[in-house]
């Protein structure tokens, strides 16, 4: 009964403190010295977590089941196509038929939290934690427990992907335009994409792509292709795309 208070406070902060455009920041990182040779490892792809909705005029997220379903179909299709050519074997784990799916789902959420912290405390140089200030250090982990998950036996890495899109509603866009004239900064839309490679033996995040404003509209096949290419940009061991 008290539980909804938090969502109220979130709404209030969204309504009263109109967010200003985020400053430019880094979008990719990898563990020092990490590299992959082609054809040497097996990678498990966890069921991606995909969420699409609209952003109301006041900034609330309005989840949209149809858009999410469309985006899921498009992104899964593009991922299958793209991962065939990354140079290493990638197997998609279907969580509905995998024993220990609970454990893997937890890790997917944990990965989301870790990747969010990387964006907040490392990719944005002005906000780095003291321990993350060294130029080359990229030390993030989901913990060593991952190796105990039997479903990952025989895999060297897990690829985890999360996306969340909130398209600015007509009202939000109108507000943005009027805000521009009024000198009040209003952002419209949110497009978070995260893709990370995690070492099964250590739990360390060895490669991460995370961006709060990714391109490509996953509701359309073309947009989904663009989104996937951005998510997998610089994937370890992949041949650079030839023009």
């Amino acid at each position: 009964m008290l539980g909804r208070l938090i969502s109220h406070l979130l709404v209030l902060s969204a309504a009263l403190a109109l967010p200003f455009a985020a400053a430019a920041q880094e979008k990719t990182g990898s563990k020092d010295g990490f590299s992959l040779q082609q054809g040497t490892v097996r990678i498990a792809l966890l069921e991606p977590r995909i969420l699409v909705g609209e952003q109301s005029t006041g900034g609330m997220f309005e989840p949209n089941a149809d858009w999410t379903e469309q985006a899921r179909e498009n992104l899964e299709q593009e991922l299958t196509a793209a991962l065939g050519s990354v140079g290493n074997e990638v197997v998609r784990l279907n969580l509905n038929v995998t024993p220990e799916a609970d454990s893997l789902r937890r890790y997917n959420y944990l990965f989301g939290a870790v990747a969010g912290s990387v964006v907040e405390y490392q990719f944005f140089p002005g906000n780095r934690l003291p321990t993350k200030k060294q130029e080359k250090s990229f030390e993030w982990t989901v913990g060593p427990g991952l190796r105990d998950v039997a479903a990952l036996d025989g895999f060297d890495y897990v690829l985890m992907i999360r996306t969340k899109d909130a398209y600015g509603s007509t009202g939000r866009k109108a507000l943005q335009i009027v805000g521009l004239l009024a000198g009040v900064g209003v952002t419209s839309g949110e497009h978070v994409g995260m893709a990370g490679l995690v070492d099964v033996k250590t739990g360390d995040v060895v490669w991460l792509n995370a961006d709060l404003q990714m391109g490509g509209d996953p509701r359309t096949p073309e947009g989904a292709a663009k989104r996937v290419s951005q998510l997998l940009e610089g994937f370890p061991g992949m041949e650079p795309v030839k023009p």
Partner: protein
Amino acid sequence: MRRAAFCAGAGLAALLPLAASAAEELPLLPPYVAAYEPQSVDERGMWMMADEQEKLWALSELRVDDEELNAYVERVLCETVGKDRCSGVRIHILNVPAFNATMSPNGAMTVWSGLLLRVRTEAQLAAVLGHEFAHFEMRHSLKGFEQRRSASDASAWLGVLGGFAQVNTGDAQVSLVGSIFQFNRGQETEADLLGLKYLAQSAYPSRAASEVWQQLMEESDATAFGRKIKKRDTYRAGFFDTHPTSLSRADYLLDQALAYNDAGDPRSKEHYEAIQKHLPKFLADQVKLNDFNGTEYILSGIAGTTGWTGELLHARAELFAARGNPRDLITSTTLYLQAMDAGYRPPETLRGLGLSLVKSGKRSEGARYLEDYLAILPDAPDAAIIKMYVPK
């Protein structure tokens, strides 16, 4: 299909007044649509999120994974709202030592362990479950979402346009914020009153709903007294309150229950039998909240029905031991011994008794109990620290 169900419901509603002359006081329930599917874009989006949240509860470490306890709570819900209604709900019991239950738009209900510990009868549990179910039946999540969106939309426009016109819109913004909380309080009252109708129609007495809020007030008074802070029993809700105050809820629920004038067995003994297996865990969590007087109130409330059982004596001993004044350690020693006399002697009682004795200066006597504790649980997480009290 849906339309047919609705018509049948409407037909029943039209028929009932004829039959109702015998029991005029019994309230009329709204027609119920079984197997409802979300309709609008907003509603389907909310259900999608709720489905995801429900999967997380299913794999949460906090979930009480016990079929019997789940079946008990489900039975109470079904007896309250009826078989057809309760089949649309899945119950997840979570180990959270606070008084709460939540309802998602997709029919997922959470019941917190602190609620099961605090209600004293099946009827009181039924009152809370009925209230949550009423939120579900009236689709409150959706209406609340839409209202919050309208208010925050208006607030955003005010902010931008106010900036444009160089006008201070602070007052208008504040009243929009207030409208969100006021709307929420309105929904809570609505759910209270529909919940009470279920209760009046069921075998449980509807007076139980008011009792829940009376007990909560008494507990919070006890907590406030123990912490030397001001009591908070007001009749009017404050600006940021999401719910009506306990006092006004206790009041209007009692009024309405008196109007229904229904009777029934609140089933107190059965409630404690159903949670018996989990009581030590629930009590241990409550003791850790560092709320001496509030916990004393809860303990004596349970003892009022079951008498001072070993579990309760042990929990009370832990409460005194945690406060730890020299006089408290004498009390806790006595209570641990009484718990053991009552036949309750898990390793935790031996540990508590041993530590209370050691801290009261009776080192060798205490060490004997601690040795027993270590003999039963050699790999206990606190074994290393307990060993420090045991002479080599």
